């Protein structure tokens, strides 16, 4: 008996050692490369940090004061929010519609094929495929202009070079690239709804629209919440297509915050200033996520 107790004691020790030795390296990496940078970005933003100078001068809130009167920064904030709002709304709407359409296809039919095709663009290297899109959108020799001229419309639209069009082009390219994820997740959500529910509703004489708003949408709420939170976070980080195609131009019309932070930090060597931008973005996102949690809280529970 006593041997058993002793052995148990050793096992507990083994368990604790296991937990400790597994967590320690992981926590260390998370601390150094994730948590520390968050704190560090606030610190850097209080300095006039420049990689060339060894003792950067402390400037307090000066970077923030300058930022709030910096037209380019304010424009990049409004660009980013506009981009996220339009893209997320379009993404959720389109993804739901496409998923509903695919869900109607019988399982024996080409359902799998549709799923495969819509997911295809997400596998493409963004930098490479963005450059391909750049050629497609070229106003002179691009295929998009070519298609319009075949249709008899002679639009010489400069999709990426016109301040009014560039954002729409980036939104479209980004949606094309990325919507497959959400289609698959929404489709999985749809498929997890028991068919029974639909059948009983149809027996009771409800039409398709009523079924969608009465049954499908409420049962999809959890999936939609997950999808919208993930999409919002990922769209705040859109960087590559803009960087590859326009570098924020023309005249800052497509400058998203990520690009602005990158350009200031690594092209103009204004690390402190760019950190200020990052901190403001973090604060905005914090407010946004808190609001989101408050808004959606009740839906999590049922």
């Amino acid at each position: 008996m006593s041997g058993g107790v002793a052995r148990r004691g050793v096992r507990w020790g083994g368990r604790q050692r296991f937990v400790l030795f597994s967590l320690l390296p992981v926590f260390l990496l998370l601390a150094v490369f994730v948590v520390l940078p968050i704190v560090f970005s606030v610190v850097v933003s209080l300095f006039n940090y420049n990689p060339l100078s060894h003792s950067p001068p402390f400037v307090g809130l000066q970077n923030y004061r300058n930022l709030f009167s910096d037209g380019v920064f304010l424009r990049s904030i409004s660009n980013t929010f506009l981009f996220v709002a339009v893209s997320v709304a379009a993404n959720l709407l389109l993804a739901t519609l496409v998923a509903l359409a695919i869900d109607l296809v019988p399982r024996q039919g080409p359902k799998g094929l549709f799923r495969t095709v819509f997911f295809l663009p997400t596998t493409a290297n963004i930098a490479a495929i963005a450059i391909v899109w750049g050629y497609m959108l070229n106003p002179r020799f691009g295929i998009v202009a070519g298609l319009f001229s075949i249709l008899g419309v002679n639009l010489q639209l400069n999709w990426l070079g016109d301040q009014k069009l560039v954002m729409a082009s980036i939104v479209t390219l980004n949606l094309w690239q990325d919507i497959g994820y959400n289609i698959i997740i929404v489709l999985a959500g749809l498929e997890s709804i028991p068919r029974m529910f639909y059948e009983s509703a149809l027996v009771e004489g409800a039409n398709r629209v009523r079924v969608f708003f009465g049954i499908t949408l409420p049962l999809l709420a959890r999936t939609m919440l997950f999808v919208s939170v993930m999409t919002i976070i990922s769209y705040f980080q859109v960087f590559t297509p803009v960087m590859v195609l326009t570098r924020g131009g023309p005249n800052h019309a497509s400058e998203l915050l990520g690009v602005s932070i990158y350009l200031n930090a690594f092209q103009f060597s204004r690390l402190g200033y760019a950190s200020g931008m990052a901190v403001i973005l973090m604060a905005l996102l914090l407010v946004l996520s808190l609001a989101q949690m408050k808004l959606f809280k009740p839906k999590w529970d049922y």
Partner: protein
Amino acid sequence: MVAVFPFLWMVLSSFKTNREILLTVPPTFLPAAFYTGGYLKVLFDAPFFRWMLNSLFIGVTTTAAVVFTSALVGYIYAKFQFFGKRTSFAIILLTLMIPFEVIMIPEFLIVSGLGLLNSLSGIIVPSLVSAFGIFMCRQFCESVPGELLDAGRIDGASELGIFLRIIVPEITPAMSALTIFTFMGSWNNYVWPLIVINDQVKMPVSLAISYFNGAHMVHPSYVMAAAVLIVLPVLAVYLVFQRQFVEGLALSGIK
């Protein structure tokens, strides 16, 4: 149709000459002649194989580390009690909400301080662990019955043995989904290598594409060929493993 068209156009254009791409207005779909000069240029006049190897190396090491650490830590969060468990998990979840652009400057300073700038390690080391992976694996480990683990303990298995022989087989679907997403994320990552790498020979493929797409944009044929060579391998892998892709993604969304 819309989903596939850019791929199709990319492949067709890669067999056109520079002149044909730039000067045919309006453009034609099919190349006038089957031109392979773009591919030859990309494969043999540039360190393209080296770039592929760089990307492959970064992708494989990152993915192996992320999948292993995520499964291990996810398992510990699901099945063990320890001091600071709730708080540390809340912090891990919180970091999921932080976009990369917020931390990229301090990350750069830290990696630079560690002397890892302009090296493949500089790309790999910061992404050895993934908050998302830990979260996802924890969700899956929670559904593994505790009796299974106790049975293993009674049989005298070590804790690591229990993890490897009982947990890993149970959460294989989650791990393969995580493998796919981590590798694709690494293969497609652009901003971090852009910050870390200066040397041409150390670039991963995402940066390599801009090598052909220089300031003057006069070699679209090379660019298209390079794009095909970068995009199609991943596409092929996807077509082979599409069931795992789609199911893994669906799982991560439902859980």
